[in-house]
C-alpha cells in the first residue's frame, strides 16, 4: 500500500473511532451545570430588580414632584418652558378659561397676553418681551411668581437652572478593622453625573474605584495565621473596584432621601502563595473515662487557589438633611442602611472545586471559617446588612463650581468571619474631597 493511502486510511480509522467514542460523565457534572445556570439566573434577576427599583424611585419622585406643584410640569426648566411657550399664540388657554377656575400658580406662570376678563393683569417683561401675565391678587412685592421661583430653586445649587451636573469628586476612604483599626482602604471617586429629573430630585451616577486591605486578628483556628507560636496576626488583601449609582430625592429644601446601588469586585488572597501557615483544630481524645478536647495543629502551604475574586451587589437606602450655615456653604448628612449580596466567588487560578477543597484542607476538619457555601470560604457572607452614615461639606465658589469634602462610615454588623474562635466585623471609613461641576 502506498504511503499516501496508508496515511489516509490511518486518518479515516482515527476519525471513525474518535466519532464513535462516548463516555458517561459523573452525575456531579450535571449538578455543576445546574448550579452555574441558576446562579447566573439569580444574578440576572438581581440586576433587573435593582433596575426596577431605581426606575420606580425615579418615577415615584417625578410623580411626587408633579403632584407637589399642583399638577404643573416640574421645574426641569422654567427657563426652557418660558422660552418654548414664548412663540405660541399667547394665552390661548388663558382666553378660553375663567381665571377663577385656573390653578393660581398655573395662571401666574402662564405666558400670554392680558386676560380680557381680568382687568388687574400686568406683565412681567424681560428684554422687552412679555413673559408672564400676572394677576394682582396680592401686593406688588408679594407676587406668587416669586414664591414659585424660590420654591423650585435647587437648594444645593440655587444659582443654576441647568439639568446636569458632573461631580468630579475623588473619594478617599480608609478601612478599619475593629480589631486592628488600620486605615487601609483608598477609594478615589472619579466623577458623578447628576440630573434634575424633578424639581428637587437629583440622580447621581458614581463610578468608584476602591482598594481594600483587611487584617484579621490573631485568634485560634485562624487558618491564615503565619507560622509563629503563638500565631500572630494574619492578613489577606482585597484590592478591587466598584461602580454604581445613587438617586437623591429632595423632599424639601432641607430633607432628602437617597437610594443607591453599586457593585464591587475585589480580589482576595489568603496570605501569599507559598506561605506556611499553622492550622489549628480541636480533636477529642479519650483519657480514661473522660473525653478531653486537645488542640491539634498541622502545617499547610498557601496555594495559588487561595486567591480569588468576589463580586457583590449592594443596595442602600438613606435619609439625609441639608444644613445651610450661610448662603454659599452647606452641610449634607445622610444615614441609612444597606444590603450586600455576594454575587460570585471567582478562583483566580484553579477551579471552584479546588478552591473549595483547598479552603477545606486549610480550615481543617470542623473549622468553619466563612459565610459562603458550606461555610469554608474566607469571604463575605452571601447576605450582609450594613449601616452607613455620610457627611459632606459643600462650598459654592461659583454658580458652576462647588468644592466638596466629606466622610463616609459603613459598618457591617454581621460577622465577616465567624466560628467559635474567629470573629471579625468590618467597619470602614471614607474621606473624600473634590469639585462639583454643573453643565
Amino acid at each position: 500500500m502506498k504511503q499516501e493511502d496508508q496515511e489516509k486510511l490511518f486518518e479515516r480509522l482515527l476519525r471513525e473511532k474518535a466519532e464513535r467514542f462516548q463516555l458517561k460523565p459523573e452525575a456531579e457534572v450535571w449538578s455543576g451545570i445546574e448550579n452555574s445556570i441558576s446562579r447566573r439566573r439569580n444574578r440576572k434577576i438581581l440586576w433587573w430588580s435593582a433596575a426596577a427599583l431605581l426606575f420606580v424611585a425615579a418615577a415615584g419622585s417625578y410623580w411626587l414632584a408633579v403632584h407637589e406643584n399642583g399638577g404643573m410640569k416640574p421645574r426641569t426648566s422654567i427657563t426652557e418652558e418660558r422660552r418654548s411657550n414664548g412663540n405660541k399664540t399667547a394665552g390661548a388657554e388663558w382666553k378660553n378659561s375663567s381665571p377663577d377656575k385656573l390653578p393660581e400658580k398655573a395662571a401666574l406662570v402662564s405666558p400670554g397676553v392680558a386676560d380680557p376678563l381680568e382687568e388687574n393683569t400686568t406683565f412681567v417683561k424681560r428684554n422687552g418681551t412679555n413673559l408672564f401675565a400676572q394677576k394682582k391678587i396680592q401686593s406688588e412685592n408679594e407676587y406668587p411668581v416669586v414664591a414659585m421661583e424660590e420654591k423650585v430653586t435647587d437648594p444645593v445649587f440655587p444659582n443654576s437652572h441647568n439639568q446636569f451636573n458632573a461631580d468630579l469628586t475623588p473619594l478617599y476612604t480608609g478601612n478599619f478593622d475593629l480589631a486592628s483599626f488600620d486605615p487601609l482602604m483608598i477609594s478615589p471617586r472619579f466623577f458623578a453625573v447628576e440630573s434634575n429629573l424633578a424639581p428637587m430630585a437629583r440622580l447621581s451616577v458614581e463610578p468608584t474605584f476602591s482598594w481594600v486591605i483587611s487584617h484579621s486578628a490573631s485568634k485560634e483556628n485562624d487558618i491564615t495565621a503565619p507560622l509563629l507560636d503563638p500565631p500572630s496576626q494574619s492578613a489577606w488583601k482585597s484590592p478591587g473596584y466598584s461602580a454604581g449609582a445613587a438617586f437623591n430625592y429632595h423632599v424639601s429644601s432641607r430633607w432628602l432621601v437617597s437610594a443607591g446601588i453599586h457593585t464591587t469586585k475585589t480580589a482576595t488572597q489568603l496570605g501569599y502563595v507559598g506561605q506556611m501557615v499553622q492550622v489549628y483544630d480541636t480533636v477529642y481524645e479519650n483519657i480514661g473515662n473522660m473525653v478531653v478536647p486537645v488542640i491539634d495543629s498541622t502545617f499547610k502551604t498557601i496555594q495559588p487557589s487561595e486567591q480569588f475574586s468576589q463580586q457583590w451587589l449592594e443596595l442602600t437606602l438613606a435619609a439625609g438633611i441639608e444644613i445651610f450655615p450661610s448662603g454659599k456653604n452647606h452641610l449634607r448628612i445622610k444615614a441609612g442602611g444597606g444590603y450586600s449580596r455576594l454575587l460570585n466567588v471567582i478562583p483566580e487560578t484553579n477551579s471552584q472545586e479546588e478552591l473549595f477543597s483547598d479552603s477545606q484542607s486549610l480550615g481543617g476538619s470542623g473549622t468553619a471559617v466563612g459565610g459562603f457555601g458550606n461555610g469554608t470560604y474566607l469571604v463575605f457572607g452571601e447576605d450582609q446588612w450594613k449601616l452607613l452614615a455620610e457627611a459632606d461639606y459643600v462650598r459654592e465658589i461659583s454658580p458652576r463650581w462647588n468644592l466638596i469634602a466629606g466622610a463616609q462610615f459603613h459598618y457591617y454588623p454581621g460577622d465577616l468571619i465567624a466560628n467559635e474562635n474567629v470573629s471579625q466585623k468590618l467597619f470602614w471609613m471614607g474621606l473624600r474631597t473634590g469639585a462639583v461641576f454643573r453643565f
Partner: protein
Amino acid sequence: MSIVKTEKTAVIISILSDAELVQRCLRADARAQKQFYERFAGRMFGICYRYAGNIHEAEDLLQDGFVRAFLHLKDFRGEGSLEGWLRKIMVTTALNFLKREKNIRNQAGIEVAGQEAGDESSGLQQLETEELMKLIQQLSPGYRAVLNLFAIEGYSHREIGEMLQIGESTSRSQYTRAKQLLQKLITEQFSYGTDHEARRSGETI
C-alpha cells in the same frame, strides 16, 4: 396521578426534536435542559476527553461547555445540526482552556525519533477506542489539539493556525509530528499487547 402525569411529560420530552428541545430550554424548562444534557453529554464528553489531559479536566470542560451552550442557546439559528453547534462550543471551550493554561505551544518532553511511519493502520484497527483515546491523551496539549482539529474535526491547517494563533506551516509540522508520535505509541501498545498475549499463552501452555 401526579406520577403518571410526570411520566407522560417525560415521554413527551424524550421524543422532542432538537428544535423543540431548544425552544423548551430557552423557556428555562429545567427538565428540557436535563434532557438536552443527557442527549448529548456522552458524545460531548468524548470530545472533551480527546482534548483534555485527564478525566477531571475533561469533566471541567464538559461543564463549562454546557453552561456556555445554555447561555448562548438563543444564538442557535437552526442552520446546522444542534450537535454540530454544540460540538463547536466544546471544541472552542477546550481550545480556550488550553490557551489559558498556556499549554498550546508546549511541545517539550516528546521525542519523535524521526522514524518512518510503518503500517500502523492494522494496529489502529485492532486497538480498542478507549485505548486509542488514552494514547491521544499522552500527546502534549499542542499536538493533541492539532491532531484533533485536523484529523478528527476536519479543519484545514489555515483554520487551525487562526484558531491557535500559530502559523499554518507550524500547524502542518505539528500535525505530522503528532501523527508520527501517535503511530509510534500505537506500535508500542500493539507490540506490548501482542507480547503480553504471547507470554500469557506461554504461561498457560
